[in-house]
């Protein structure tokens, strides 16, 4: 490619898909490679039924994971799941993951659907997570998913791009979660509105895929359409024997046009916490130390992976969580559960007084398994702390890393993990 035609990651994906050069701002009709939905598949199926078609257009592209309220918490949820199973059966959807497999984004990645260079659309705002594997992945609405089931195509605007270069080494007890919280606080909830966010630089290259997933997952909280980290040896090793098909790695060109380039250095970065009721209301943990906590949640698509559980287990080993604090641990998937079980992390957490819950979203969206009463305070490793999200509108949700969550579980108050080192 000539240097004058240098393209961003998003432009490259859109150009490859349309077969002609597409620049940021253009709207084109594209055929995605994979389509994700979860417990909302029942609602999508109802809209799809309006089209009067017998079957969805390409069942092999559909991936459906039940995760938002599993196992069903009430008859209403049970009926919802039942309708989805019927839809799956009628349409011969092979890639269906029933209750207990895990959070959709974790399962989708583990099952080898999140591939470099692929265009993935999901009826969930945190579909951005698959950018960690070099895919172009964006969230869409339910009606749009129904339209995709009917026609296999959808209009998309090629987003302008924002490059976030990260350098420096994380200090002890500081993680990619702290970095992304810091970026969200710095940029605000609309800091990357409708943009493709490319994470780059030595710190991103050094990060694990789990850490990159945390970054790409929460890019949604600054309004990003999608996020991206360049595929590398780690990506290839993860996908080896797991990828559902051959893939083509796609990289942005040198000299591509970015609307903005931001630089961060994580050396000296402190643990961060998002305070109620906005994700961009971010402060250093030191400013909140001592805040009473009633419930701690470790899990979700943001931070429920093995490395996250191990961080928590290391802090809580041979210790007890504070009296009066409920600590709920949700492995993000069955695979995560089994691995954490095998290495003893779950036993350590259970011995410390944590409740080991089933793989799934847990109370993240306020459906079940840890709902908050008025006046209660929850510290969570999730990605959203909006008023009322986990139950009462009079409850408060703080967001942090697994290290800060475990340290705070130990003390019953928001605690700087650097002060209770394992």
């Amino acid at each position, binding site marked *: 490619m000539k240097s004058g035609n240098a393209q961003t990651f998003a432009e490259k994906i859109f150009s490859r898909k349309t077969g002609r050069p597409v620049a940021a701002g253009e709207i084109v009709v594209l055929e995605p490679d994979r389509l994700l939905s979860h417990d909302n598949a029942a609602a999508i199926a109802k*809209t799809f039924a309006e089209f*009067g*078609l017998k079957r969805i257009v390409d069942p092999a592209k559909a991936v459906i994971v039940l995760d938002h309220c599993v196992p069903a918490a009430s008859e209403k949820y049970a009926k919802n799941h039942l309708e989805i199973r019927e839809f799956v059966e009628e349409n011969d959807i092979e890639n269906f993951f029933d209750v207990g497999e895990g959070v959709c984004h974790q399962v989708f990645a583990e099952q080898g659907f999140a591939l470099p260079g692929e265009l993935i659309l999901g009826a969930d705002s945190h579909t951005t997570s698959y950018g960690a594997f070099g895919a172009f992945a964006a969230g869409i609405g339910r*009606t749009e998913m129904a*339209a995709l089931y009917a026609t296999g195509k959808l*209009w998309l605007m090629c987003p302008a791009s924002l490059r976030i270069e990260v350098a420096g080494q994380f200090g002890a007890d500081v993680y990619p979660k702290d970095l992304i919280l810091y970026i969200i606080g710095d940029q605000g909830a609309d800091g990357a509105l*409708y943009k493709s966010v490319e994470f780059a630089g030595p710190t991103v290259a050094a990060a694990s895929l789990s850490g990159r997933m945390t970054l790409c997952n929460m890019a949604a909280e600054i*309004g990003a*359409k999608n996020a991206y980290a360049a595929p590398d040896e780690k990506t290839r090793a993860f996908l080896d024997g797991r990828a559902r098909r051959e893939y083509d790695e796609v990289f942005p060109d040198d000299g591509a046009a970015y609307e903005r380039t931001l630089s961060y250095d994580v050396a000296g970065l402190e643990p961060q916490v998002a305070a109620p009721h906005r994700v961009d209301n971010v402060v250093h943990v030191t400013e909140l130390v001592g805040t009473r906590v009633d419930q701690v949640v470790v899990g979700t698509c943001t931070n429920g992976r093995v490395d996250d559980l191990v961080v928590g287990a290391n802090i809580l080993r041979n210790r007890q969580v504070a009296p009066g604090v409920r600590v709920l641990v949700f492995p993000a998937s069955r695979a995560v559960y089994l691995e954490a079980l095998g290495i003893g992390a779950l036993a350590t957490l259970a011995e410390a007084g944590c409740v080991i819950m089933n793989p799934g979203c847990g109370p993240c969206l306020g459906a079940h398994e840890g709902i908050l009463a008025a006046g209660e305070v929850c510290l969570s490793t999730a990605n959203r702390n909006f008023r009322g999200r986990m139950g009462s509108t009079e409850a408060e949700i703080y967001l942090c890393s697994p290290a800060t969550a475990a340290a705070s579980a130990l003390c019953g108050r928001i605690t700087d993990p650097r002060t209770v080192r394992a």
Partner: protein
Amino acid sequence: MIRGKVWKYGDDVNTDVIFPGRYTYTITDPGEIASHALEDLDPTFAKNVRPGDIVVAGKNFGCGSSREQAALCLKYAGVAAVVAASFARIFFRNAINGGLPTVTAPEAIARINAGDEISIDFEAGELTAADGSSYEFARLPAEVVGILEAGGLVPWVKKELGAK
């Protein structure tokens, strides 16, 4: 070309105040959806809005949840278009897919007041404020205009399927 009376709001109008979450799973009738439009932002809106009125707001209109009713309640209430300095991504999509035209015109916002009559020429990509000043905006591409003209994504898909 449309001409309508303006309802003016500020920045970061979120989907919770456009269509409160407490109704998202219980109400499906279009008239009833319309009756809650902007309820938690401006309780006078749903009662007084007239077909053809235009909602004008600042940046990041429709941020927050992905609920489609946020766009549909305005459409069902008869709103002819939403003009904003910028739109949250999923609202923008939901608006087009729901058949509600959007206009991104950041320079125009400060020159428009509540109650003004403004006109929008979609073909020319031009908005004219009550004081006579006019603003160009990027026209929507043909694919998207087709969806708007069909009345939204569901009727558009039906048309496409019928045409095959």
